[in-house]
């Protein structure tokens, strides 16, 4: 047997799952897609005493479009998002990132809520949630609260989730009018962790001047990085080549990637700058051309 022994409980409802988590706290883990948790258990890096399987809770999966927002159930699998053309067009950042998230077999199982709760800083979705200013609906047996993406990711593999809480839903605000966005990453092979990845969103006013820019990165810090301030110089300006290059240079000064066996700190910084230029340019073009 690869994993250490544990007690397995298939939760029959969200209330059941939350009651179990309240009872067992940090000794218990929720099992969603299992594409990060089971490998960690196979290595015995994770040894939860209790595994609460939430896969049978149908209410937790699916997209719920509402006025002004789209709500994604935490148990929604990547593959379900990929198959939804409308969703991919509405949120091109996510549509473009999905093919970079691991491999087809993983995307058939992996879930949005599991990904965000795992909070791997090299993962695409945390950076995109930050770019889109998503809000995370979190529940315990006692209460419900909404956490802004900016407050959710507190460290590498660490979130603001308390031991009795579950991320149950992600709220994405509808894209701003006159906006375009773009996600790009470079990895050694398709599906590998990114050397650097950039999510860019550009919103323009009626004079085609930049009104708001969101710029976030994955793979270059302990958490997803919000580097939107690097593009402050573009606000109120047309997105000229020089202004985009200046924003990329400013971004390079804001990040401090750790470097690893495949890419030095300097190389990661270089890649982040190049991707920022390209993603900003593409996002600005898409304001007019559409996705």
């Amino acid at each position, binding site marked *: *047997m*690869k*994993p*250490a*022994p*544990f*007690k*397995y409980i*298939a939760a029959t409802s969200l209330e059941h799952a939350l009651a179990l988590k309240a009872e067992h706290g940090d000794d218990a883990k929720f*099992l969603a897609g*299992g*594409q990060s948790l*089971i*490998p960690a*258990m*196979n*290595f015995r890096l994770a040894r939860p*005493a209790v*595994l609460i*399987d939430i*896969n049978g809770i149908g209410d937790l999966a699916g997209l719920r479009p509402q006025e002004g927002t789209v709500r994604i159930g935490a148990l929604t699998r990547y*593959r379900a998002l990929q198959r939804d053309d409308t969703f991919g067009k509405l949120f091109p950042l996510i549509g473009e990132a999905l*093919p970079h998230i*691991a*491999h*087809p*077999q*993983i995307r*058939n*199982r992996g879930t949005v809520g599991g990904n965000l709760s795992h909070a791997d800083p090299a993962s695409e979705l945390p950076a995109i949630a930050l770019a889109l200013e998503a809000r995370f609906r979190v529940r315990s047996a006692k209460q419900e609260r909404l956490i802004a993406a900016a407050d959710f990711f507190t460290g590498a593999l660490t979130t603001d989730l308390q031991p009795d809480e579950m991320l149950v839903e992600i709220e994405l605000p509808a894209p701003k009018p006159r906006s375009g966005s773009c996600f790009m990453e470079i990895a050694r*092979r*398709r*599906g590998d962790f990114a050397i650097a990845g950039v999510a860019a969103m550009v919103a323009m006013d009626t004079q085609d001047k930049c009104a708001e820019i969101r710029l976030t990165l994955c793979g270059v810090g302990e958490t997803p990085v919000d580097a939107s301030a690097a593009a402050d110089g573009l606000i109120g300006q047309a997105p000229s080549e020089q202004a985009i290059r200046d924003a990329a240079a400013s971004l390079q000064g804001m990040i401090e990637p750790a470097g690893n066996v495949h890419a030095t700190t300097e190389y990661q910084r270089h890649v982040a700058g190049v991707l920022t230029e390209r993603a900003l340019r593409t996002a600005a073009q898409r304001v007019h051309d559409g996705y």
Partner: protein
Amino acid sequence: MDTDLHEITLSVNGASYTRRVESRMLLSDFLRHELGLAGTHVGCEHGVCGACTVLLDGEPVRSCLMLAVQAKGHAISTIEGLASKDGTYHPLQQAMHDHHGLQCGYCTPGILMTMTAFLDENASPSEDEVREALSGNLCRCTGYQNIVDAVMTAAMRMRG
């Protein structure tokens, strides 16, 4: 800790099985050790290599990243169920044979399960799409070209 046992009933290649399993038993080990279906290979056992790919309700998944107890009530398809009952190969098995897509053969069951499901969804793939779909299956004989050729040939033959 007492051994945590669960009774599960599931379908594998159309046959129903009921077994008592420990909760920590992986689906890959269940197929191989409990059911004796050793055609599902295990390579890395942490979701990287793709050798253990099976179909869960028709969709390719890593059987090393699922617990057997999670397969309760579901339909699993493995390499053992791919050929027809009379022994006729699936068109992709035949094409892999024709193109020498097997070298050592270790990664082959996972590739066949992944790519037959892919061809069911995409009858006319481009070579790039085939390579993308194959990206989650490692072949350490480095024989991808022949595998890609086999998938392209199988797609053509299946379109008729």
